[in-house]
C-alpha cells in the first residue's frame, strides 16, 4: 500500500498537525491488526466496515474506515521530522495478500522512538 498524496492538512487544537492521505488501496481490518505491532489500536468494528484508530504515543495517530482509501494522520509536530519517514514505511511495507516481516520494522521503530524520546525529553 502506498501513500499517493496528501490531500489536505490543518493545525489541530492540541497542537498536532493533521494530514489527510490518499492511499493506493483501501485500508482494511488487517492493516490495523498489522499496526498493532507498533502501537495501540482502538476499533468500532460494527460501524460501517469498521472504524479504526492507531496511536503511537509521542509520534502519530492514524484514523481510518475500512474500505476507505483516505486516512487521517495526526503528527506530533515537534518530532514530525523524525517520524514521517517511518509512517511512510509502515504503509509501504504492508501487504494485503501475504505476511509482513515486522522484524526490520521493529528495529526501525526502536531507533525512531529513541530519537523521539531524546528530542522530547532529553537523553537518558
Amino acid at each position, binding site marked *: 500500500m502506498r501513500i499517493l498524496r496528501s490531500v489536505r492538512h490543518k493545525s*489541530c*487544537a492540541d497542537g498536532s498537525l493533521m494530514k489527510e492521505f490518499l492511499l493506493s488501496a483501501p485500508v482494511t481490518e488487517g492493516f490495523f491488526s498489522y499496526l498493532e505491532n507498533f502501537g495501540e489500536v482502538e*476499533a*468500532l468494528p*460494527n*460501524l*460501517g466496515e469498521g*472504524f479504526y*484508530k492507531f496511536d503511537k504515543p509521542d509520534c502519530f495517530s492514524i*484514523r481510518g*474506515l475500512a474500505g*476507505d482509501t*483516505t486516512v*487521517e494522520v495526526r503528527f506530533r509536530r515537534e518530532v514530525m521530522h523524525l517520524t514521517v519517514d517511518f509512517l511512510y514505511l509502515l504503509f509501504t511495507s504492508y501487504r494485503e495478500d501475504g505476511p509482513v516481516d515486522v522484524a526490520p520494522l521493529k528495529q526501525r521503530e526502536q531507533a525512531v522512538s529513541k530519537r523521539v524520546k531524546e528530542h522530547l525529553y532529553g537523553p537518558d
Partner: protein
Amino acid sequence: MTEPPPIIYLNNAATTWPKPREVLEAVSQSLARPVFGSGRTTGSQGEDYVTLAREAVSSLLAAEPPEHVVFTMNATDSLNILIQGFLAGKGSGSHVLATELEHNSVLRPLAELERQQRIRLTVLPVDNGSVNPDLVESAITPDTRLMVTTHGSNVLGSLQDIYRIGEILHDHGVYFIVDGAQTAGHTPIDLKTLPVDAYVFTGHKGLFGIAGSGGFYLRDPDSIAPVRYGGTGTDSFSLYQPREMPERFEAGTQNYPGLAGLAAGANYVASVGVKAIAEKAERQTAFLIHELNKGPGIEIHNDSPELPIISFNIRGLDNDDVGFILARAYGIVARTGLHCAPLVHRAVDGGSGSVRLSLSWFTTDEECRIAAEAVREIAENADSSLGAA
C-alpha cells in the same frame, strides 16, 4: 467532471453553505462588469456595491445612519479595529471585561493588550450558557472602560442578555462592543434600541455572503480612533484620514465581490425574514436535540440553545473521532475541537472540545433526521464497544 458525493453540511456556524442563488449571481456579476467606486469613472454600467451593501446591512440591523456601517474583512478584523481604536490614547491601566464565551477574535486581542500591560482584563464566568448581568455589574470598578462580549455563543448557541448588560454598562459609563458574528441574520437585531456602542458582524455566516466580508456598526464615530490610514477616493489633498463616516475607517480598495455578495445575502435574509429563519432553526434544533437525547452516552452541552448550534460529546469517543466518522462514513460535515473559543470548553467539557452541528435556513428536516440517526448509530457502537471492553 464527476459530481462529488452528496454531503450534509452542518458547519454553518463556521461558514454558511450553500449560498442563495442571488448571492452567487451577484458575486459573479461583480467580477464580470466594471464596478463603481468613489472617484472612479466606470460609466453607467458600474454598480455601487459598497453603497448597496451598506444600505442592505443598515436596513436589516436597523443600524442608522447607514454611513455608520463600516466594512472590514471579517468579524475578527472589526474587533481588532474597535478594540485597538477604543484604547488608543487611553494610556495603560484600563480595566476591560469579557466572558468565558468569547471567541479568540475577542480573547486574543485582549490577552495581547494585557500582556503588554496596557489593560487589566477580567473574564467573567458563564452560568447555563450566559453571563448573569448582575455579575457584570459587580465586576465593574472605577477604572472599567470597556466590555467586549459575544452576543451568541458559537459553542453553546446561547444568547446573552445584551439589552440588560448594555443598560448596566451605560449606567456606569462603560463602552460596550458586541460581537454579533453568530447572531446577524439568525436572530432579529434592532440597533436602534439595543444599548450597544458597536456591533460587529461577519458576511459569510448568517448573512450568506462570502468569506472576506464583514464589518461593524458604530454609534459614535468619535469614540473610536482609526487604526488604518490610506486612500478613500475623497478629500485626497488632505494628508490626514477624513473624519467623515465611513471613510474614517475604510482605507483602501473595497472588496467589491464580497460586498456584492453581502448586499445580496442581507437582502435575501430580509426577504425571507429573520423571524422565519429563527423559527425554523428553533424547530429543527429542538428536533435534533430530542433525537440525540435518545442515543446512549450522548452528552449535549446545551439543551436549549437559542441559536441553531448543538455541541455534544459521545462517551468513550474523542470528538475528532466522531467528526471523522461523520464525515467519512456518513458524508456529514460537522466541526470538532475547541471552535476557537477555548475558555468555555473548560466549563462544559473539561477542555477537551466537542462536536458541533450548526444549521442554516437551507438545512432540511431530512438532513436533520439523517444526522441524528448517524450520531445515534455512532453512539450505540461506542456504547456497545465500551460494554464489551
